[in-house]
């Protein structure tokens, strides 16, 4: 009797494990399920073709699936969806060619966007090579500076300079935050950038509390204020 119970238990365990494995396989195969639910077969076939070709060139599938799912969520029409995924695949191919196969997907995506926004490929390659952990944030900082009105060469030089001085993570993003503050206070982007670089080179770098108070931050930044993770979230 005891042996029979053991056998039954082992069989049940094996069945559970096999079914779990099947569920995982299904989930992996269903990464375009939300797209299939909203588009005709031809559209989905086109997307799968684009994705498969890009995958063969070393583009991570997940990045293209994410774009397709984003389009489906936004109810983009079918031609626009296929075009967006195709364009994104081409941009990612360029990033793969620059940084190599096996580059971490989020870094690859950031590199592709930065190149689209005009950042020099050589700067992308250099930052990714020298700072393999922080380079996505550094590229974001360059884009942020460009968006604030700093010239491309100056923006790239500022971030590279900061990186060489050991800035990383939040400190790099501080470049653009500080520049925005100076611009709000009346400086031109060019003068603000020059001022920051002079201070960086002189070693007069301080890490005081965030420049704008929370109230200001809400008003000016679209109300995104990083909050230490101590309080419980009201909506999760």
């Amino acid at each position, binding site marked *: 009797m005891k042996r029979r119970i053991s056998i039954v*238990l082992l069989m049940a365990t094996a069945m559970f494990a096999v079914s779990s494995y099947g569920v*995982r396989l299904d989930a992996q195969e269903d990464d375009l399920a939300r797209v299939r639910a909203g588009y005709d077969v031809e559209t989905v076939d086109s997307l799968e073709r684009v994705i498969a070709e890009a995958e063969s060139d070393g583009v991570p599938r997940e990045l293209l699936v994410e774009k397709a799912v984003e389009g489906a969520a936004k109810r983009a029409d079918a031609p626009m969806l296929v075009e967006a995924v195709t364009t994104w695949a081409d941009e990612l191919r360029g990033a793969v060619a620059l940084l190599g196969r096996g580059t971490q997907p989020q870094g690859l995506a950031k590199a592709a966007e930065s190149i689209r926004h005009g950042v020099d490929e050589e700067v992308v390659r250099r930052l990714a090579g020298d700072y393999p952990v922080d380079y996505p944030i550094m590229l974001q900082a360059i884009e942020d500076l460009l968006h604030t009105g700093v010239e491309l060469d100056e923006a790239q030089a500022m971030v590279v300079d900061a990186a060489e001085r050991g800035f990383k993570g939040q400190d790099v993003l501080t470049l653009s935050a500080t520049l925005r503050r100076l611009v709000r206070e009346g400086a031109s982007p060019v003068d603000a950038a020059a001022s920051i670089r002079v201070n960086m080179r002189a070693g007069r770098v301080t890490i005081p509390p965030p420049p704008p108070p929370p109230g200001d931050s809400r008003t*000016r930044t679209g109300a995104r204020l990083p909050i230490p993770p101590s309080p419980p979230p009201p909506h999760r």
Partner: protein
Amino acid sequence: MNESLNQYLDGELEAEQLTPEAGAEAQAWEALFADARQAGAAGAPVGLESRIMDELRAERKTPVARIVDWWVSPRPVRVRPLIGLAAAAAIGALFFLPIGDGVVEAPVGAMTTMVGEQPVYVQFQLEAPDAATVAVGGDFSDWEARLELVDPDGDGTWSGRLLLPPGVHQYMFLVNGTDWIADPLAEQWVEDGFGNRNSVLAITGGAGAGSLAP
């Protein structure tokens, strides 16, 4: 019960040693024992045995009921620790080992891992006086409207907080469940390829921001 009567019933005292009251009570007990012995010798009523067996046959369970009973009835189970450990390891391997290309996929916001910092709460806010609902969706939620913003005082300012990992995130507001709109106050954005702009949010954990101001 009287102590001496107790001793009598236990055979420790003779009847003559009891008080008259205890002796009378002892006689009553003896009579009861005699009746009981007599009843026990009488045997079961005629047909009782066959009736009981009939009842037992009537209660015999179907195969399905017996299987169900086997699963739901508590019972001690003996499993060799080695076999149990092997089974647990097999299940764990199926759940945690990668499928296919042998590469563990990084989750959304994988820069969290790269940066190695803690997720932070981020407050979202949108002025939308005419909206019935406002939610936030982005690459951190596979573009599902994960966070419903609230406007408790009805002044048209919708807000809410979401725990996000450090990294560069793209997001939009979903108004009335149908209209995706960019954050009008976002300082950074990127074309989404669908004719709109995704707002961009770069966070690097809960550390205080630095400053390079002169």
